């Protein structure tokens, strides 16, 4: 399907190299492909190869000879989950050098949150340069959709989504709400605790 020549005055003139066209040949329907049998055996060859190679690898492992594993499966609860370097995980509130929370209670994150799961109450900060700080800061992870908008919206880099923790499920909706101390890492999350 080569580029067509300009069909009218309005047709844009394409400069050389401004667009590359790759012509993909349709596979021909030959007799060999249409009787299925050959193609079926080719496919079976692939799956049989995988089957026997993997079986041999499993057997070698079982005999104590280590080699390549026979499966890519991660046995999750026993083996730790493998997270990517930039995985977006549970929220974390950051602190300044003096130990105070960075958050200035500007409510930008609460405003942008599409799931409306952030609740912040503000109070006066002792530091006159900061003016405001968060008194309470709750995130309902049961409603959060992990879009990451809150971390993006924050003007003072106070909230990140890099706690590298994915096991945040709990047995009650109330336990899905994390408060400020828990998000700051000052208090451990206890099921049935204060929220």
């Amino acid at each position, binding site marked *: 399907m080569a580029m067509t020549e300009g069909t009218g005055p309005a047709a844009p003139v394409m400069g050389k190299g401004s667009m590359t066209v790759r012509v993909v040949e349709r596979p021909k329907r030959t007799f060999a492909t249409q009787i*299925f*049998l050959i193609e*079926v055996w080719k*496919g*079976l060859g*692939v*799956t*049989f190869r*995988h*089957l026997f190679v*993997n*079986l041999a690898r*499993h057997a070698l492992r079982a005999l104590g000879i280590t080699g390549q594993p*026979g*499966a*890519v*499966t991660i*046995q999750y609860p026993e083996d730790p989950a493998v997270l990517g370097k930039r995985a977006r995980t549970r929220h974390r509130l950051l602190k300044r050098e003096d130990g105070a929370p960075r958050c200035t209670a500007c409510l930008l994150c609460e405003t942008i949150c599409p799931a409306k799961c952030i609740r912040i109450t503000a109070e006066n900060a002792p530091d006159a340069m900061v003016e405001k700080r968060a008194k309470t800061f709750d995130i309902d992870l049961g409603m959060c959709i992990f879009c990451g908008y809150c971390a993006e919206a924050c003007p003072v880099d106070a909230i990140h989504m890099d706690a590298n923790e994915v096991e945040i499920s709990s047995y009650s909706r109330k336990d899905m709400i994390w408060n400020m101390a828990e998000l700051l890492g000052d208090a451990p999350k206890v099921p049935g605790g204060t929220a």
Partner: protein
Amino acid sequence: MTGVDLLWTAVKVVAAIVLFGLNIAGLLGWVERKQSAVMQDRIGANRADIFGITILGLFHPIADALKMLTKEDFVPKGVHKPLHGLAPIISLGAGMFCLAALPYGGAVTFAGRVWDLQPIASSMGVPLVLAALAFGVHGIVMAGFASGSNYGLLGGLRGAAQMIAYEVCLASALAGALFLYGTLDLQQAVLWQAHHVWGVLVQPLAFILFLTAGAAITKRTPFDLPEGESEIIGYHVEYSGMKFGMFLMTDFFESIVVCGLITALFLGGWAIPGVDLLAMGAAGGATALIAAVLMLASFTVKVLLLLFLLMQIRWTLPRFRFDQLLDLGWKNLLPLTLVNFLVTVWGVYLWR
């Protein structure tokens, strides 16, 4: 028929269905999971344990069975109750009958009596099994019709169209082979192969056609349109609990029956090349017992290997579109089976 004959027949039928059928069906549930997993670089179900012992997930079929037995048998509003209940029984019953008609072994002389190892022996064995297999489709259509659900009805109709198309191919693929064996009796067909040569060597085309049509009859991928798990769920969409389990079991039974038929008609049945099992069986005493065990083992191993192949095909090929399916059946397989039959008849005529 004496009392011993009747008792022996009953024992054989129960053994064929329970020992052979149910065990292999349970095993197939496990093989299905594990084989697909290994060929897709996965591990497969391995969590069901008894006191921490998992033995490669072999307990999963047991867990499945327990789950189905204890689940609520939910009958939705709007179904035709009697037919809804009857459908899985018909399907499963047809599968069971076919299982009981397979030749698991030949005649064995022991303790002064000839014991035939085929549960239901009949001079019309092949048509009987094919008819029973075809009867199974009534269960599917009935299920689809009685469900009062469009998806179920679609599945049932697809099942009917597919069954009719491939039942014809199934029977006519056998025509050549049966002409060669000169019998309709499964046991006689096995004996012919034991004396001459395996059917697959003289009827290779019929073997492939029968395998294809057989795979279609068992309604498994690439021919799983009546079920169509990913779109319409199919004729058993309104079933739950053990009634659903019966449909599931029918699928496995039909796979076993088709593999048993292929074994009996093309792969020499219970015969082992180079070993005269019939003479051993007629010798009596311990030799006859060994012959009986060898016959059963040979038949079972052949069936298991075929099931392995069918399972591999099931997990390799994508599903056909419905028009492709019917094209394959009516326009390709059927003419080929007829050509095969004509060529066989001519060959036999010229050879004689």
